[in-house]
Structure formats: C-alpha cells, structure tokens
C-alpha cells in the first residue's frame, strides 16, 4: 500500500515542479546563457596523468515530463572544463584541461580510473554495461555520480546499478570519512542546487529535499562509487563564473569534486 502512495506523491511533486520549471526556464536561460564554445581548450593535446572522463550511457525510455530530462551530455562540456581549470589551479594534479567521453561498450574506460556520470537517475544500463561498470570498479576505477534528485530518479539509478552491485548496500558517508578530509575539511556541507532553482530560495528538486552523500564501498571498505544525490555539482561548476550563481555553492562543488578525485587517486 505504501508504494503506490509514495509514487503518487512523487508524481504530484514532479508535476508541480514541471509547471514551475516551464514558467521560469525562459528567464533562467537568459541569465545563464550557453556560450556555445565547444572548441578544445589550449593544452588539451598534452598527455597528462589525470583525465576527467564523462560517462556516456543509454537513457531510460521515458514519456511525459521524464522524457524531457536526463542525458549524459547535461552541462557538457563547459562544466567539465571549468571544473578542470579549478582542479589544475588548486591542486598539484597534472590534469588535462579537456574532458574525455567514455562508455561501457568498449574498453577505453579502463584507461580512465576516474569517471564522472551526470543524471544517472535516467540511465538504463543493459546487463552487459552494468557488468562492465562492475569490472571497472573491481579493477580499481572510481565512479562519481551527480545531479539526480528525488525518489523516482533514485529508483531508476539503483535499478541499473543493482544489476551488478547488489551484493553490497549503498550507504551514507560519515562526516569523518577521509573523502571529506583528503584536502578540504567538508564537515559542514550544504545542498548544491542546479540553476533550475534560481534564484535559489529553494535548493532541492522534486522530492529530493535533503542532500545525500552516499557511497557504494568495495570489499575493503573503500568508496568506489561516490553518489552525490539531491544536488547538482555540474551546474555549480558550469556557472561558477556567472554572478547569478552563488559562490558558496560553486565553492563547495569544487571542493567536493577535488576531494573525491584526490580520494580516488589515493585509495
């Protein structure tokens, strides 16, 4: 009985959100305009130690409002490149200024031990791709998930993930975990909103009211999948240079991702 009620509530919330989104989106795009500059940044040909790899995945076949959302290309490539500028400036990581795109079809992903995935709340991994993701993790890869919100997207996220990762649970990360202290001490974290929340009186989307820093840990207890749920680091990176996006969120998003990358490179 509980489940239908929950789904109904989520649907109502989503419908409300969609209405608000449609009304305000035009204004938001004017404040946060696409630059349209996708040409490779200087230095992208250099061979480096670290590459920011973005996962290309198949989307769920959705209808209605869900068909409008969810794609591996969200915030791409500006978010990645703008984040990489910060990564190079703030750390000693020898990082390439341009992202790379990988998928779970070929074996190219194994050359990139750190992989970022946006909006996995809409992915639909076939069994073979789920198994390859598990192999990637088992070999030592790290997956950083971001920008998915609320019950519905969580369900979709875990539906694919559980095809290969059901043997261990997804858990909340404790505040004293090294991932929050590798470089920056992130004891006090806030919800990082997407620009859809402009002017940011509200920071959540759908019913994803509370930000959750979760993880799937490997057999040794190391975080192998860092799950940033109910928050949108990608938007924070993408619009960190925009005065309409609050600096405090951008700052935390940078710090979180830097910590996650440093953790991935040391654990």
């Amino acid at each position, binding site marked *: 009985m509980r489940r239908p009620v929950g789904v109904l509530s989520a649907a109502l919330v989503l419908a409300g959100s969609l209405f608000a989104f449609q009304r305000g989106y035009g204004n938001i795009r004017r404040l946060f305009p696409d630059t349209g500059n996708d040409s490779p940044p200087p230095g992208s040909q250099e*061979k*480096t*130690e*670290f590459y920011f790899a973005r996962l290309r995945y198949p989307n769920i076949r959705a209808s209605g409002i869900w068909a409008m959302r969810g794609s591996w290309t969200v915030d791409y490539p500006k978010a990645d490149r703008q984040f990489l500028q910060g990564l190079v400036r*703030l*750390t*000693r*990581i*020898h990082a390439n200024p341009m992202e790379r795109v990988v998928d779970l079809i070929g*074996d190219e992903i*194994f*050359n990139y*031990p750190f992989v970022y995935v946006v909006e996995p709340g809409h992915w639909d991994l076939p069994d073979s791709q789920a198994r390859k993701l598990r*192999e990637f993790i*088992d*070999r*030592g*890869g790290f997956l950083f998930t971001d920008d998915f919100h609320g019950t519905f997207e969580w369900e979709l996220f875990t539906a694919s993930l559980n095809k290969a990762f059901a043997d261990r649970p997804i858990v909340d990360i404790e505040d004293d975990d090294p991932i929050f202290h*590798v*470089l920056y001490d992130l004891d006090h974290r806030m919800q990082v909103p997407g620009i859809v929340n402009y002017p940011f009186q509200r920071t959540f989307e759908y019913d994803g009211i509370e930000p959750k820093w979760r993880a799937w840990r490997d057999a*040794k207890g190391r975080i192998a999948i860092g799950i940033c749920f109910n928050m949108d680091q990608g938007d924070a990176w993408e619009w960190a240079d925009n005065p309409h996006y609050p600096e405090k969120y951008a700052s935390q998003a940078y710090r979180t991702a830097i910590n996650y*990358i*440093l953790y*991935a*490179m*040391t*654990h």
Partner: protein
Amino acid sequence: MFEFLFNYPLAVYQKGTFVFSSGWPAAALAAGLLAMAALLAWLFRRRRLPVKRTLALAAIEWSLLALLLLLLWRPALSVTVLKPQQNVIAVVVDTSRSMALEQRYRQALALYEERLGGDLKKRFPVRLYQAGEAPARVDRLPAEPAAQRTDLGAALRHIASESSLLPVGAVVLLTDGADNGGNLGPETIEALRRARIPVHAVGFGSERITQDIEILDADLPARVLPSSRLLLTATLRQSGFRGRTARLTVRDGDRVLAQRDVRLPADGETWRETLSLNAGGAGVKTLDIAVQPMEGETNPRNNRVERLVDVRGRKPRILYFEGEPRWEMKFLRRAVEEDPQLDLTSIVRTTENRFYRQGIRSPQELERGLPSTVGELFAFQALIIGNVEAGYFTPVQQNLIREFADRRGGGVLFLGGRAALGDGGWQRSPVAEMLPVSLPDRKGAFRRQPATVELTRAGAESLLLRIEEDPEKNAARWKALPYLADYQETGQPKPGATVLAEAIPGVRLRHPLLVTQNYGRGRVAVLATGGTWRWQMAQDARDQSHEIFWQQLLRWLAGAVEEHVTLLATRQTYSGGEAAVIRAEVRDRNYLPATSAVVSVHLLGPGGIRDTIELAPARGEPGVYEARWRAPRPGAYLAEAIAREGLEELGRDTVTFRREDGSEEFFRTEQDRRLLERLAQQTGGRYYRPSETGDLVKEIELSEAGITVRETRPVWNAPAAFLLLAGLKTFEWLVRRRWGAV
C-alpha cells in the same frame, strides 16, 4: 721392472742426485768424450760410404764408447734415507662412516694388517692413528668405521705437532679422502712441510659415484617474511641413471611446498635445479629437500638434506613520498594492502603546501613531509621516492636518503615521473651516487607513451619478477602484460647494477626499466615508470600480476633490512665435534658500529637445553661480537642475542642452526683422489692405489724428516747399462751388414 733394470725404484731416482763415485773429475770425462769424437772423425774420414751413413756409424760408435767411459766414472745416486728403527712411521686410518661404503674400510684393514703393517714394522716403529671426528692414537683399529666426521687435517696437524718431540719419518694415510672436517687447508700443509713429513696417501673407493643420485647442496635464504616467495637452488649430481626422471620435492613436515620431475643428465654431471616456494606462516621451519631414490641406488642417504628457514612475522614499514597525486600511488597502495606483511605509509603533496598522509601512527607523524632526522626516517625499512624533484628536498634530506641505504641498510626505490630521476635533477644531487644508473643530464626523458616490458636474462632468473612459478610461463606472462602508461629514459646502468627489465616503447627502442644494485649496507632500485597501474586497470580484476609484482618488489626492498642487532651463525649445520660460531653485528641508535655494547646470547636446544653466553668483541671488526659454542646434542637450536649499551637495550635478534651428526658422511662419498694427490705432492709423498703399495715401504725410507743419513747408491752396475751396451753393438752390426760395410 724399473727396479730390475735400474737397481732402485723410480722414487730413488726422483729424490736422489747423480754423483760419480770414482772420484775422478767430471771435466776429465768431458775431455775424454771430446777426444773420442775427434778420434772417430779421423778414423772415418776415408770411408767410401755416403756421408749420412758415415755419420750414423760414427755416432753409434761414439755412443758406445761414451757409455763405457761414463760407466768407468761409476755413476751413483746420493739419497737421504731414514735411519732404520730410529724413526716413527705414523699410519693414519680413516675410520669415518663413508669408509663403510664399498668395503673401503675392510680393504684398508686388510692392507694394513696383512702386509703393510708387518713390512713397516720390520724397519720402523709404527704409530697407529685414527682420523675421525678428532685425531686419536690407537693400538688397534676398530672393527667398523663409525666416526661421524672425517677430519684428516686435524689428524695430520696432530702428527706434525708431535714431530717436535718424536722423529716422525713419514705419514701413511689410508683413506677415501672424503674429508669434511675443513682443516685440510694451507695451514696444515705448511705445518707438514715445516716438519718435512711426507704424506703417502693410499686411496680407497671408487673415484666416481656409481648408481647414485646425490644432493650436493641446497641454498635458500635463512630469513624471510611470512608468505614470501623464496628460491631454493639445489645442486645435484648423478651417475648411472642418465635420461631417467627423478622427483625433487621440498616438504615442510608432511606438507609438500614444491615438487618437480627432473630429467637426469649425463653421468657424473653436476647440475642445478631451482624451485620457488612459499615460505608460509611465521616460525622456524625445517625444510626437507629430497630426491626420490631410484631402484638399485647404492647410497639413498645422500638423496635428502634439511635446511632451516626462519620465517619472521615482522612487518617492515615502507615510506612512500609522492610529489603529486598519481594513479601509481593509488594502485601501489592497493597492491600492498593485500599483503599483510607490509606496512605502507605514504605522503603525497596534494597542493603546494599540503600533504595527505596515509598509514601514519600518530597525527604528528610526518607532519612536515619527508623526515629530516635519523630518528624519524630510519624508523622505516624502505623508502620510495616518487615523482618529485631533487630540489624539493633540503641538502640534509638528500643526504639522509643516501644514508638511509648506506648506513641504515634500508631499501630505496626511485620511481619514474615527469619530475623524477633525470627530469627532477637527481643527477646533480648527492643521491646520484647511490643510483644504479647514470641519469641523463637533461629534461624530457619522461614520456607518456606506451611501452611494453621485457625481462632481461637476470630478470627472468630473479624471484623479484616471478609472477608465475614456472620460469617459461612467467616469461610468457610478462610478455602478455598490458603496456605501461609511461616510461623514462634512465641513462646507462652503472657497473655492478643489474637490469632486470626493459621498457620497449617501439621497434629498436629499449630502455632500462627496473635496475637494482646494492649500495653500502642497503639496496637501491630504479623503476623508471609511473605507469604500472595499467597492469591493474587493463586486465581482468581477478588478475594478480600487478599485486604480485609490487608485493615482491617491496618485500625485496624492505624484507632483508637489518636492525640494530644482526645475529648469525657462520653455518646452518654443524657436526658433533664442531663449535658453532655465533656472531652479532651491533649498531647504536645512529646505526653506527656500537663498540661498547654488552651482547648476551640465550640458547635453546632439544630436550630443554638452555645456556647463556656472552659474546666478545671481534678483533679488527668494530661493532662485531662473537663466540664459539658447542651444541651438546643433535637437533635444532635457537639463539637470541640481546645487545645493551649501559642500561639501554639497543636491540635483539635471533638465529637458528642445527647440529647433525654423521649425515655429512653420506655425501660426496667418492674417493677424492685429487685431494690426496695434492696432499702427497705438496708434502713430498706419493699417492697410491691399494694395489700399488708394493714399493711403499721402500719409498718411505726416502724421507728428509726424522733421523736421516745420506747414502750413495751405485747405478753403474744396473742391468740397463749393460743391456744398452749390448743393444748398441748389435744395432751397429745389423746396420753395417745392411749397408755392406762389414
């Protein structure tokens, strides 16, 4: 025959000097020979024969006359001989257990009792000795050879020392020469030579083993970390089973650790077999190394040996300093985490001014990065220097890195990287001296380009790079490894360095990848890449190549590092009569030789044996202390040394050794003829087979030891001289008839 023709045995000719007993001057003989030559030339001048024939006949005539003239001068031999009944002859009989083989002892006993003893006693007083564990004078020889050891050297030295009080004329040694006492060295030979005592050796037993497989030696490290892979090298020899297959097995109790079927090579050939095995859990282990006896084998007791291995449950600490976050560090850490015997502490510079430390024991540890003091840095057993410029470290730190290997005896590994090795300016630092390669003095040696890896011959043989037990499979596995993410040119390896693996970035390109060398008391290695992580990411998650590689490399780097006290016994096995030599090397808090330490050693042995001894400083070796200790009974012994300086304990260490009685007698059992011949030749004696001892008593007389007299023995009357005269005359007659010159 020789004696019939020449009046005396060959030895008399060898030892004597020629003289003319007529007393006429030798110059007159020479003048006579010349005069005869002139006379013959004058007489033959008018012969109508061809020149060559004339000369031949003249030569025969001259030889005849010359021989007659020589005999008129009465040639003789002047020799030094023992005075009868005034010199003692020492007869030394080997009574060790190896003499029981092939009835050697019975043959020796028969020779002595039935012939040799009686003949000797007619001319000399005879003293009988037995050479076994310790020399002993006896009146009668034992019925069976039962000595656990053969110490011929001790017996000969004993006789040489007696010669100062007793006129010892010669030594007759009845033995198989299978000496295992270790005292038959130059000192013993010199003692015999000083006393001028010739040793006449009679050798018993086959000179080559027959129908036998023997383990001559088994070599393996005495101390290892738990679960380490260790290499056992067995040296074997066989005869009579060529082409057949024998099974070589290494056991720890009932557990088989390694096994191999070996195809036996040519008879008499010595060969080596190497087996790699896992040391297992902590504790002192007695490994049994055995070859299954073959059907019809004559001596199966030399088919097995035992070796002690001290598997130490310690956990060496390794400090890894990384100049920037790299994947190599993550995957190296993961590989080491799988190894319960390694304790890795790492520091990485995450930003210009921040470190991230892992594996530290307190929040304060390594707060400022790489330590600048002996106390902090030398607490580790190994050091890994990652992608960091030499200039990042202070001169004090750079010197400390060098001292870490040189003085402390630690292991240091340098990794490749864009700021490492030559690109990091290490070639201009004090550390350059310790590196196993001469780094190129330029930037750009580091390349983020794929490179495959190939083992060198040394690498293929080394356990360090053994991912698979079988060497061939191992080489194939290395070839199949994914390429490295990067490589770095290291420059040329230094003399004494060993290149174990090479990076191959392209056709006709190859660079040293893993190079090792010893430096001072420690070990140094260069692994010129930061890209082995691909071996983990580009292979199946279950593949263990990357983990095994790093675990073995770091165990090699840190596993053999010694602390303030290093205790050792000079051998693993001692026999009953020997004292174990126990030595301790003691270093103070700064790892300098501790010259004022007090070193106590507690010994535990079988049946509750307990003893405590104090080691004394070794002469000429600062910081070394030693003592000799005789194990009271066969079995395994454990010694623990505790070194103190004042009230402060500097450290402690343990060592194990065994006392084994008699087992040596079943190894190298063939007659060591070369040893006996050398012994006889160096002392002025002779080697005899038992069947050739007829002249032994006569030859014994020809000695310069003891109480001697000079004798002149005529040789002019030897039948050989007259036969030669008759032969020359007959030859001349036959020649003349043939040439019609009669």
